[in-house]
């Protein structure tokens, strides 16, 4: 199943829930709505000729206007690769936890919450683990984040 067949299969099977995007340069990229994230994810995993059971990567992206939560999934048995993402408003962004579907997401979501401040609903252990325990200077990976001792490289050009 090549990338085009996969994209075609997805568009006609997931009728509107997964809207294709063109900014993906290599693997097919789709956009999903926040509220039907869980059942799309479950469908991707259970669908017998997709079988996306392996979560490669889950990360937050801050594009100054909005947040994005990107899921890169792969299927071990079917040799497929797929990315889909979720656009969230900049203030009080929230996302469902996909932990039941892909247990690997547990630490990824924890890290995303800690570095971006995107709240993850019903996650079993949303505590701080990368930054020091007494860290009180907000969420560092945000674009608008600044701190007294954060030295930016001289802009140069």
């Amino acid at each position, binding site marked *: 199943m090549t990338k085009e067949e996969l994209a075609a299969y997805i568009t006609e099977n997931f009728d509107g829930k997964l809207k294709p995007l063109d*900014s*993906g*340069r*290599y*693997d097919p*990229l789709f956009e999903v709505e926040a509220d039907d994230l869980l059942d799309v994810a479950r469908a991707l995993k259970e669908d017998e000729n997709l079988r996306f*059971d*392996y*979560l*490669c*990567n889950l*990360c937050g*992206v*801050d*594009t100054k206007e909005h947040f994005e939560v*990107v899921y*890169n999934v*792969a299927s*071990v048995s079917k*040799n497929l*690769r797929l*990315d889909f993402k979720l656009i969230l408003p900049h203030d009080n962004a929230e996302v469902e936890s996909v932990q039941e579907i*892909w*247990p*690997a997401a*547990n*630490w990824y979501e924890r890290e995303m919450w800690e*570095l971006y401040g995107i709240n993850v609903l019903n996650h079993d252990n949303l505590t701080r*683990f*990368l*930054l*020091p325990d007494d860290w009180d200077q907000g969420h*560092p*990976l945000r674009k608008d984040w600044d701190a007294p001792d954060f030295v*930016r*490289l001289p802009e140069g*050009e």
Partner: protein
Amino acid sequence: MMAELRTEEFIVNMGPHHPATHGVCRLMLTMNGEKIVKIEPVIGYLHRAIEKICENRTYAQCIPILDRFEYVTSMSCNYVFSLAAERLAEIEVPERAEYLRVIMLELNRIASHLLFYGVTAMDIGAYTPFLYGLRERELIIDLFEMTCGQRLTYNYIRVGGVSKDIPKQFVPQCRKAIKIIGEKLTDYTGLLNENPIWLERTKGIAVLPADLAIAYGVSGPVLRASGVQYDIRRNDPYCIYDRFDFEIPVRPNGDCFDRYMLRIDEIRQSIRILSQALDGLPEGEIRHKKVKDATFKPPAGEAYARIENSRGEMGIYLVSDGSKKPLRVKTRGGSYNQLQVLPQYGTDMLIADLVANFATLDVIMPEVDR
């Protein structure tokens, strides 16, 4: 009335400066006598915010920063970032550069597995294999130092190709190094593989079931030792790996011994790839013409590149907004998921088994903390 004898569990800290852990990792173990009841990894001691730094650097400057993302196989860090950038800008890499990249990646994989061999043996109590493993690793480190000048953080593979061409005596010295390593492998396996004490300590210890591994995103040698035939060089091919014929070693029962043996088999496969790559090394350009370090500006878009590193899938999710600096660089390392799955299958065994288990997972902390 004799007070009712009750034993309560006590907490033992393994790390952060414990000799057995690789890098600065701390495992909070809740113990009941000798048996481990609960493992809670505490990470973050080596967090250097590599992703935040990369957002403030041009594409050429990101590569030395990402060298430190996984310093045991930093060639693959350079490569995976260049692959992501090339996928963004749809750049064709010249033939000779592709061959040089395969040679460097496979040499780095052998060096990492030799280090793994030494450290695992030392954790389980045998001190000499560590020295033998490092002695062979020096041969490879000399090759790297001769081509790119550094022994650990190479900054050699760049967006669009490689930075320098290999000196004349690289190929003969590389062939000799591979031959020596091939022969010395019999010494290593003689020392450990059939040694009854080693088998006693690793066979059937800490079995990782395949579905649990896939669910937690475990990849690389640990996944293949649990019987899952999944190698990114074959399943999601990148670079020119489809031109070489090599097998993917897979072992069925997923215990410490299989994870250890699988890496020894992988060294043999890498030697096969290297000899084929050295034979077929073409002449020609080593870097794409239009890609200059100071002026590289990929079009806006995003791409996820992933390669088969010695510790599993190493991936970089690169988002670019068309400027000279990447908007977002998400680094994904194999050890991150292997440490996440450790508490699920690593309990109710003795401390000595946990040390053996942790050593065969080959977890190193820069990849986890970033």
